[in-house]
């Protein structure tokens, strides 16, 4: 129990104490306490804040290398190198990042760790900040990683504190399941002090039998890994808990364990046995045997998505010939989509336990419009996307990519994974030569996965336009630097400009244009579309949010714009087509919100009535 007293607010302070932490901050704090010396990551919601904290710690305390890697694949490989020098490593990425890093992940388990490796993986049931809700814990099974399932912020800290020991004792890398609801959970957490000494540098010691994982040696290492996992499985009782007695039980992992307990409280059924799995892979059958010993003959698994948990548990019960019938809240085939809500869980649990409920579970509000994120006022992506849609008309094809440019309302014809814009577009251009094709890619995605895609387009003679949207940051996740970000904007000391990278990949048709000059963007786009081969248009403009923070006086001093109501014919170009949120519809007239406007001037350039005027007066002409 936490003692009374104000919690400490600095999550990275040296001292032991009670800290108000998010799940993300708790993972970073645990890594520092565990003596992690290497932290690598590619930013991705919901887990970006872990590495942000590690970078802060690295600059405050030294002895720790923390980096925003170019992509997740490199991040995990680099951490593997650190591990093989005996240095403890933390890697964080969102769920789709593990798809990118799956090769290094699979080989790390075969070859084994030296310094412990922990991977914090940001799952996103409901795809609140993702293009998919993939449950990548399935990959842990294929790759034979250990999966830990903390359910509270304190458990994130406590589990992670032990995770590097577990990884080193067993030689197996450890994945910590961090769904959005846990990353952004906040609680007061009891924490130990940071070590007095910074982590020591390591030394690479050759281990050919482990690291040169080829042929018969790969098979042998696979066998060794299985033996290691069996040893881990036998220690499942250190992570799993059973409480309660009765014939019908609930099983859950992580956040869903607390959901199960609270559902039972609201059903006044707190005696029902609950198995809370703190380790979901490998599954320890002793946990199921403990449920049977508690009197259970039937169990319902509370889980989300595709039955990762229930299928493993059903297999374990079958293999052990346990008299326990296990079903899943995800349905008879264990397949479900979308997040598990409290109301849905309660209804299903009540039916399972045979408890009658007559509650309507609250008043349902009418259908209210969503409030998704959209382009900020002054976004440098607005003009190129406006021009692309205009240039393509009804029949052209537009391949979009991950990042701020994917935000509504500027919808592309597809949006899947990193690199999919140009990747798919080159196939479309080759398969459908009669259609105009434009692809776009943000600067960070360009470095992350665009480089080989561009090279492939060059090598195969793709005939299309690629628009690189360069806002100079990984803006979507909070302005982390890209390999192109200069030192003044928080980047490294040897930035690689996009044009330079393109030339190195063999692109010869490259045009640079400033985002806020719409006429120029339109002109260069039209010119490029008329030329054969792969044409690249680099449209640059520093993210306006970042610029506003870096140089607020520059935006404050810039020319302002106002809509003159008498001239405005409500053509919709600025308000609907450009969709600038600083332009408000007051019913009788449109008005520019001067607090929200960042003076980019794009509305003036699209206005068909010449109703938008620049002004430098201190008095707002709309009020005059």
């Amino acid at each position, binding site marked *: 129990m936490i003692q009374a007293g*104000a919690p400490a607010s600095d999550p990275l302070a040296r001292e032991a104490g009670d800290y108000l932490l998010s799940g993300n901050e708790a993972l970073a704090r645990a890594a520092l306490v565990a003596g992690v010396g290497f932290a690598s990551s590619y930013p991705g919601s919901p887990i970006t804040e872990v590495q942000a904290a590690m970078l802060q710690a690295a600059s405050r305390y030294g002895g720790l290398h923390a980096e925003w890697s170019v992509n997740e694949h490199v991040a995990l490989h680099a951490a593997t190198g650190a591990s093989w020098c005996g240095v403890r490593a933390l890697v964080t990425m969102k769920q789709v990042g593990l798809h990118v890093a799956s090769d290094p992940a699979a080989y790390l388990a075969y070859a084994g760790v030296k310094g412990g490796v922990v991977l914090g993986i940001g799952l996103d049931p409901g795809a609140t900040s993702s293009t998919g809700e993939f449950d990548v814990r399935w990959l842990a099974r294929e790759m034979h990683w250990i999966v830990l399932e903390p359910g509270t912020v304190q458990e994130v800290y406590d589990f992670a504190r032990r995770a590097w020991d577990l990884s080193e004792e067993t030689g197996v890398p450890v994945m910590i399941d961090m769904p959005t609801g846990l990353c952004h959970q*906040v609680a007061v957490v009891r924490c130990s002090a940071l070590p007095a000494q910074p982590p020591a540098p390591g030394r690479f010691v050759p281990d050919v039998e482990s690291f040169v994982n080829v042929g018969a040696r790969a098979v042998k290492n696979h066998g060794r890994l299985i033996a290691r996992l069996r040893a881990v499985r036998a220690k499942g009782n250190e992570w799993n808990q059973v409480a309660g007695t009765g014939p019908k039980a609930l099983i859950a992992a992580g*956040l869903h364990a*607390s*959901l199960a*307990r609270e559902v039972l409280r609201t059903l006044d059924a707190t005696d029902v046995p609950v198995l809370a799995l703190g380790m979901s892979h490998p599954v320890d059958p002793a946990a199921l045997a403990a449920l049977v010993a508690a009197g259970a003959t039937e169990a319902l698994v509370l889980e989300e998505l595709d039955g990762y948990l229930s299928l493993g548990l059903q297999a374990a019960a079958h293999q052990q010939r346990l008299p326990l019938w296990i079903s899943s809240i995800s349905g008879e085939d264990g397949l479900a989509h979308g997040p598990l*809500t409290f109301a849905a869980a309660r209804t299903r649990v009540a039916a399972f336990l045979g408890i009658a409920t007559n509650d309507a579970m609250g008043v349902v*509000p009418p259908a209210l419009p969503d*409030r998704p994120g959209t382009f*900020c006022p002054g976004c440098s992506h607005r003009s190129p996307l406006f021009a692309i849609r205009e240039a393509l008309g009804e029949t052209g094809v537009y391949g979009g990519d991950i990042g701020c440019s994917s935000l509504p309302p500027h919808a592309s014809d597809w949006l899947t994974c990193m690199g999919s814009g140009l990747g798919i577009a080159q196939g479309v251009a080759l398969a459908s030569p009669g259609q105009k094709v434009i692809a776009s890619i943000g600067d960070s995605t360009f470095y992350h996965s665009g480089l080989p895609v561009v090279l492939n387009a060059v090598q195969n003679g793709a005939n299309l336009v690629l628009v690189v949207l360069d806002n100079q940051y990984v803006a979507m996740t909070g302005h982390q630097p890209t390999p192109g970000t200069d030192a003044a904007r928080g980047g490294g000391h040897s930035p690689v400009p996009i044009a330079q990278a393109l030339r190195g990949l063999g692109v010869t048709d490259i045009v640079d244009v400033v985002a806020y000059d719409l006429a120029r963007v339109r002109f260069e786009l039209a010119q490029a579309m008329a030329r054969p081969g792969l044409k690249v248009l680099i449209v640059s403009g520093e993210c306006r949010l970042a610029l506003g923070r870096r140089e607020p006086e520059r935006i404050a001093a810039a020319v302002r714009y106002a809509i003159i109501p008498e001239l405005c014919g409500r053509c919709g170009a600025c308000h609907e087509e450009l969709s600038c949120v600083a332009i408000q519809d007051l019913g009788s007239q449109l008005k520019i919100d001067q607090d929200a406007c960042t003076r980019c001037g794009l509305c003036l350039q699209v206005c068909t009535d010449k109703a938008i005027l620049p002004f430098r007066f201190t008095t707002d002409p709309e009020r005059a």
Partner: protein
Amino acid sequence: MTPSEPFNVVITGMGGQGVLTLGRTVATAAAAAGWRVTGSEKRGGAQRGGAAEVVLRLIPPGGPAESALSPAVPPGELDLLVGLEPIEAWRRVALTSARTLVLLDTTPVEPALARHSGYRTPPFEEVRAGVASAGARVVALDLMADAKARWGQAVLGNLVALGWLAAAGALPFGGAGLRTAAAAALGAKGMHEAAWAHGEALTAVQAR
């Protein structure tokens, strides 16, 4: 609510309104008063005009373990709902019931992309009725727009809200800690005495 049950709070609004800071201030004050705190912060896309929300489950001494509380508030079990933007509060009506107190800003803000759907932002009284439809007691105050008019910064509406919550006794652990926590969260420079005092004074207006 019996004394050992958690006190459930939702603070909701738009990115940039100070929802997360308000949430951390309440959480810090609760912890300082000896309550345990768990909850969640929703911030995805918030800085781009998206919605932001904080859920807090404040556990009194002797209350249940954090691991027995779901991150979401069960329907009907919300004790305090602060809507810095009233349409966002309406979305959470399923969590409210007769036990809920709602502090509601009076200016609905059109969702950024509603212009493409033909949605018309409802007048405040319609939103208010929706928020109250599960039986909650609703106190409507002009927080953000009034703060913008008075001090030039809408975000100070947060401090007005905090001053009101403290003076109205809307939180079960006393209001003094809120002021300390607000000063710590915002720094001496950010702590705007006039906004706080205005919030306190508004409780008198409500009482009449």
